[in-house]
């Protein structure tokens, strides 16, 4: 209890102390921050007595005593090779213009430098009373703002987040705003990395608005350093005929929560949310999804796979809400966990909450170890045990990974999965 209070106090102290040094001190942003601070002061950091957090304990975050990076590193960090023609690079949560190549033809800017224009846009996604979103609003320093006008083909771009500080635990709370106008399309491939030796907190919030007939494909590869905390919240809304696809890989970090709230607001909106969680010794990976079917004739598909090695813990919580107006909803969710170790633990809580009668909704969950007969079959054909295990783990992930269709994203994903297997599990 004390630790948790201390945790929120520490963040509030940063807010009180930084006051005017945060961007947007003179305008509407200050008001947003003040309201968020008040909400955060009341709620505190989430704790396990809250139903939504019963399986994920943030007391380590509360105790870490994070501070802001404040100074920009002089030296450019080593970046993974560029995959797409355009990339936005954030170092310790701040936009690094010199490392970025921004697309032209639509607004693609650092949020910190465009706050005045973002009035009415920033904070327009419903915060749903989420304490971590309030924390983000209170302390965000920067973020990516993409705004695609009607009919724009935004192609593929990368969003890169790199943590650099190793001398003290830093926290950064980037706020990304991604808005797609009618009929526009974009593929966004995001990679988050950081040094393995440093404890840091990456608490991004995404405000995503997909207009009528637009399609956003959002691929997130979370490969944070092994002592890092990443608590991310996606707040997405999709209008009639629009599509939001989210694929999230959780492969790094010490404690990671990937929380996605998607609301289907117009008829025939669609959403595909897939993900893979790979956790090895000492890692905690949590995916929590909330799908709000608020309009008729929408479809949602979710497939999440968790692979647990060593002393690790995996969490999946997924709720599908079908409101009374959302007749003819087609909702499907599957979550499966594969345990590779005697010390691993999986907690799963799929959930349906349905208020419309003409619906087709289902969810499934399975938990199990590698199938011995499959393993033997592969080995009887001459495939060594380790390779056979890797093949079966890959096969296990297939269904979730298939959702990623962009070739650049596929490569990045394959590389991340292989990297995890070789480093952590094999």
């Amino acid at each position, binding site marked *: 209890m004390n630790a948790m209070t201390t945790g929120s106090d520490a963040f509030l102290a940063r807010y009180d102390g930084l006051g005017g040094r945060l961007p947007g001190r003179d305008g509407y942003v200050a008001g947003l921050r003040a309201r968020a601070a008040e909400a955060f002061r009341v709620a505190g950091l989430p704790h396990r007595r809250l139903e939504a957090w019963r399986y994920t304990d943030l007391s380590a975050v509360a105790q870490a005593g994070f501070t802001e990076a404040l100074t920009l590193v002089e030296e450019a960090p080593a970046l993974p090779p560029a995959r797409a023609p355009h990339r936005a690079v954030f170092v310790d949560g701040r936009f690094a213009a010199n490392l970025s190549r921004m697309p032209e033809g639509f607004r693609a800017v650092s949020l910190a430098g465009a706050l005045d224009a973002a009035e009415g846009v920033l904070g327009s996604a419903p915060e749903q009373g989420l304490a971590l979103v309030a924390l983000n609003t209170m302390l965000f320093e920067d973020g990516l703002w993409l705004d695609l006008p009607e009919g724009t083909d935004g192609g593929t771009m990368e969003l890169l987040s790199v943590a650099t500080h190793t001398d003290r635990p830093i926290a950064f709370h980037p706020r990304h705003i991604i808005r797609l106008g009618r009929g526009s399309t974009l593929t966004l491939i995001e990679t988050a990395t950081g040094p393995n030796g440093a404890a840091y907190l990456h608490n991004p919030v995404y405000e995503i608005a997909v207009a009528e007939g637009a399609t956003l494909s959002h691929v997130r590869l979370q490969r944070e350093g092994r002592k890092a905390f990443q608590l991310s919240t996606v707040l997405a809304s999709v209008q009639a005929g629009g599509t939001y696809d989210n694929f999230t890989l959780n492969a790094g970090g010490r404690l990671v929560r990937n929380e996605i709230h998607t609301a289907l607001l117009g008829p025939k909106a669609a959403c595909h949310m897939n993900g893979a969680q790979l956790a090895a010794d000492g890692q905690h990976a949590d995916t929590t999804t909330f799908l709000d079917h608020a309009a008729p004739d929408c479809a949602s598909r979710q497939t999440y796979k968790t692979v647990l090695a060593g002393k690790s813990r995996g969490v999946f919580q997924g709720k599908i809400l079908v409101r009374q107006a959302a007749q003819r909803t087609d909702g499907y969710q599957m979550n499966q966990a594969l*345990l590779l170790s005697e010390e691993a633990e999986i*907690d*799963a809580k799929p*959930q*349906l909450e349905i*208020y419309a*009668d003409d*619906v087709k909704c289902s969810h499934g969950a399975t*938990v199990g170890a590698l199938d011995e007969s499959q393993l033997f079959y592969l080995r009887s054909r001459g495939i060594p045990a380790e390779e056979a295990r890797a093949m079966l783990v890959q096969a296990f992930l297939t269904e979730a990974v298939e959702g990623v269709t962009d070739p650049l994203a596929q490569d990045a994903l394959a590389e991340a999965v292989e990297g995890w297997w070789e480093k952590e599990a094999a």
Partner: protein
Amino acid sequence: MPAVAETIETVQSVTESGYKWGFETDIEMEFAPKGLNEDIVRFISAKKNEPAWLLEWRLKAFALWQKMEEPDWAAVSYPKIDYQDAYYYAAPKTKAGPKSLDEVDPELLKTYAKLGIPLKEQAILAGVEGAGETPAEAFPAGGRMPVAVDAVFDSVSVATTFKKTLEAQGIIFCSISEAVQTHPELVREYLGSVVPQADNYFAALNSAVFTDGSFVYIPKGVRCPMELSTYFRINAKSTGQFERTLIIADAGSQVSYLEGCTAPMRDENQLHAAVVELVAMDDATIKYSTVQNWYPGDENGVGGIYNFVTKRGACRGARSKISWTQVETGSAITWKYPSCILQGDDSVGEFYSVAITNNRQQADTGTKMFHIGRNTRSTIVSKGISAGRGQNTYRGLVKISPKATGARNFTQCDSLLIGDQCGAHTVPYIENRCLSAKVEHEATTSRIAEDQLFYCRQRGLNEEEAVGLIVNGFCREVLKELPMEFAVEAQKLLAISLEGSVG
């Protein structure tokens, strides 16, 4: 029990509502003063002439309850209960406690006859009851299997049938008040051993004020020759019913137990907070079936029973098995999670459930399966049907400890919605810490397909009949787990519960 089904046809409803069991019995009652305090607990204990240890046990439970908070996590809503505004003891007045059915108030017997409970009729009148009877006589060739009944009226057990037949095999089947007197060692050993006093708010309340219930002990190696049954009836106004049932199946024994319940129609809410504890030793099997038909309240949600029940079985022995089957059609609010603690290696837990909510009914029900022993297996099949403005939630937990190697669970939860004003919810929790365990969970939500309805109607069924037929089909996997005659009753109940839900 079969006669219960007959009552559906024979007993005409006394009001406009579809609830056929809403009559009230006018008999002389004895009440404890309204309200709840230590004195009431002492009063109940004294009334039952209980030993000191049991009074202590009750008082401890009461002290714990006072410090606890009413749970609010279930998806049900109801106005705050005033625990001081109810009677905690109501009993039919008798001179000295009935020695035989002849001494029981004839009004009471009439009530049970109305309900179709074969306390006195059927097998007893047929002369199969009597000293020296053998199990062979208890199963007349081609005849219907007799059912031994313990009838609980408001707070006390009024009659138990077939006791002698059962005693011949060493089976103890009596009210728990009687067991406290006649088999205190068994009651003391097992009471609260599965559901401790502090388990939850309602279990603590029950532990403090429980008034009666059934007690069953099946000795080693004995297969109980007939179905055992308890019939619960809340009759008096402003009373809570807090019965406590304890069933112990010793090594290698088998028993099938049935439970039925009804209550008069009243425009007030009445609390029913029961506790059921089951203990199965090595190779023992307990099958526990419930058809819950408490008064559900009227179509506007006025009145009805709050059914807040804790049911839990412990598979203590290797290869033991506990199987829960429930058909929940009544009550304004149902809050119950019949569970299994699978301690013994190779033990088996099962939960088969049908829950219907119509009008303003709310049900939050499911099960918990705790896998502790090796190679333990559990199966969960839940069918939820929501109609009218009903809200129906399946809530379940499958928890597998690191030592439960080879554990298996399969869960299937299906929800059916009838109309667009109701809700169906599914909240399963899976917590696994064992590498070799295998868990599978599936849940679906759908409505009755137009083509199914049309097909039935084209063959001449009206819409309600068609819905009844389809709903019965939807529930088939669960209904087939019920003892046959109970299943017939349950099927009819399903149809009645859904009256007015279509069109």
